[in-house]
């Protein structure tokens, strides 16, 4: 990890300081609903920024994050739930004995969740990167789907579709926000490192990158595993925030949501991933008023529950039509202040 001491160093420190202050302020002064939404936003920033690494920066169109998030969530949950609580909740079949013995503290559980995801990504990278482009998309979509089906069909480990309950609620804004900050810093450093340049070379022209001596397989695998690691941690945080998880949470709509976030924000831009998260996660909560009866000019319309999602999908189409490369394009926050360049260097 290298943090370059340039004139932007000050800006970086200032942004992190503001973020830390905001987390402290929000934890103390905001109401619980707002804090919960902020928690969601922080977790989705982790997921979106890491998903962006493989999809945006490396240009490998993959659709598997729901699978990695599920792995992270299940591993973390199994490590956090006390043996007593486990004993009591397996209702379909008895769990494997070793499942009952698993127990660890929060940090270890999160890290193991991340490592398991990254390890699976490593194992998958060999077959997955045999294919390119849209074929990669469908293969990874398939893996994500299979992981969900496995979670339903292996009740000895996952308790089937009943899911795992009574997960201790460790996640709070300090954890989610703190890890989000760390994730963003780590990912920005990777993007700006030698590896990051290799990843971008793969995205811009894979054949040319090979010709220039870039080990494209290594660059892709590196991006894939890093992104899986943080997605696993994000999944663990989500499990410890919700306190209960079940397979239906991790279907491909989850992946679509992340894809919408990173493309809306600007594929390849970490700043874009953050903006996209705030817009999609925050926005869809804010739009709840659309489900309620509306008072317009003295008239009260009848409530139309579900209207929120109709408007959400229309907005999504319109934003994409007007910001065809997403809100940020490939640019990062700092580049907004520079004279307009091609954005990507």
């Amino acid at each position, binding site marked *: 990890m290298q943090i370059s001491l340039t004139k932007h160093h000050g800006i970086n420190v200032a942004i992190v300081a503001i973020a830390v202050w905001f987390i402290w302020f929000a934890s103390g002064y905001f109401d619980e609903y707002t804090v919960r939404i902020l928690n969601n936003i922080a977790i989705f920033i982790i997921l979106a920024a890491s998903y962006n690494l493989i999809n945006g920066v490396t240009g490998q*169109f993959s659709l598997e994050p729901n699978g990695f998030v599920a792995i992270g969530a299940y591993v973390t949950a199994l490590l956090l739930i006390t043996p007593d609580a486990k004993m009591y909740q397996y209702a379909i079949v008895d769990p494997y004995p070793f499942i009952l013995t698993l127990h660890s503290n929060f940090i270890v559980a999160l890290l193991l969740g991340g490592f398991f995801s990254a390890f699976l990504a490593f194992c998958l990278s060999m*077959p997955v990167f*045999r*294919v*390119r*482009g*849209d*074929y990669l*998309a*469908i*293969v990874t*979509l*398939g*893996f994500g*789907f*299979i992981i969900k*089906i*496995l979670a*339903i*069909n292996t009740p000895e480990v996952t308790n089937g579709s009943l899911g795992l309950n009574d997960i201790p609620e460790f996640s709070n804004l300090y954890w989610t926000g703190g890890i989000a900050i760390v994730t963003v810093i780590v990912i920005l450093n990777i993007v700006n490192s030698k590896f990051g340049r290799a990843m971008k070379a793969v995205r811009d022209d894979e054949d040319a990158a090979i010709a220039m001596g870039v080990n494209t397989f290594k660059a892709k695998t590196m991006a894939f595993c890093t992104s899986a690691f943080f997605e696993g941690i994000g999944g663990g945080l989500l499990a410890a925030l919700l306190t209960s998880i079940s397979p239906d949470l991790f279907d*491909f709509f989850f992946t*679509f949501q992340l*894809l*919408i976030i990173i*493309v*809306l924000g600007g*594929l390849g831009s970490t700043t874009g991933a953050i903006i996209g998260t705030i817009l999609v996660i925050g926005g869809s909560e804010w739009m709840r008023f659309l489900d309620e009866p509306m008072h317009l000019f003295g008239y009260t319309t009848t409530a*139309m*529950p*579900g*209207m929120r*999602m*109709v408007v*959400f*999908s*229309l907005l*999504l*189409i319109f934003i*994409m*039509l007007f910001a*065809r*490369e*997403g809100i940020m394009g490939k640019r990062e926050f700092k580049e907004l202040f520079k004279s307009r360049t091609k954005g990507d260097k």
Partner: protein
Amino acid sequence: MDITIFMQQMLNGFSLGSMYALIAIGYTMVYGVLRLINFAHGDIMMVGAFLGYFGIAVLGLPFGAAVLLSIGGSALLGMFSDIVAYRPLRNAPKISLLITAIGVSFFLENAFNVFFGGVPRAFPVPTYLEEMVDFYGLMMPVSALLVPIVTAILLVVILWVLFKTKYGMAIRALAFDVGTVNLMGIDANRIISLVFGIGSALAAVGGVFWAINYPSVEPMMGVLVGLKAFAAAVVGGIGSVGGAVLGGLIIGFTEVVVIAFFPELGGYKDAFAFIFLILILLFKPTGILGIDFEKSRF
């Protein structure tokens, strides 16, 4: 397992596979000209089924007229979605197009949910389609037998259009190079709209068939079917119409036959399409009939 049961299962798989094939053709044609995974395609199928339902149950049309209404309405919807959501993005990154496709998909699902409700409706199947045919001891309803026949006819029609008409030539040319096609004095946008129209019409036929074989229509019915049909298109080699049909049949067979022989795997049924897909792509990274999609020619 005796031969009758085996043949029965093969016939079932053939019928299911034909339905996947009908929907997969639409995916593959749109992909051929635009390189777009049209995630809204499964939802167009849902709209097709709903239009058929409205035609029969609300307007009181005979079955044939309702099918025509469904085909026409869906084709128009497909072309309209192209004009509104995809055409403005012709020169944008492909992934932006994909997001608007997801947007169209979400919109159709949720709009139908809000305005018509999520409660499944019973599709009024004409009685002559529900009659059972006894074919050397194999029992099939007329509706299930009809599917492979109509699929075969439509496949011939599509291939004829693609290879024997000037529109077909334009579509194939478009699959090679959009820029050059424009230079040749062909309105590429019109041809792309035509492709959406044809694909959506096929999806509508698939939707109506789905509804007469599994007579319940609801707003989310297209999601899983669409996804499996897409997997079918990729298995066959996306961009190839013959491949889409082959892929559809393979996935249909696998789902029925694996369950018949290994009943304990029932819970994994929905995963078969994808397991198969992954296996095929590992050995043949562009699908069975797929040429490298940079050179696809249906």
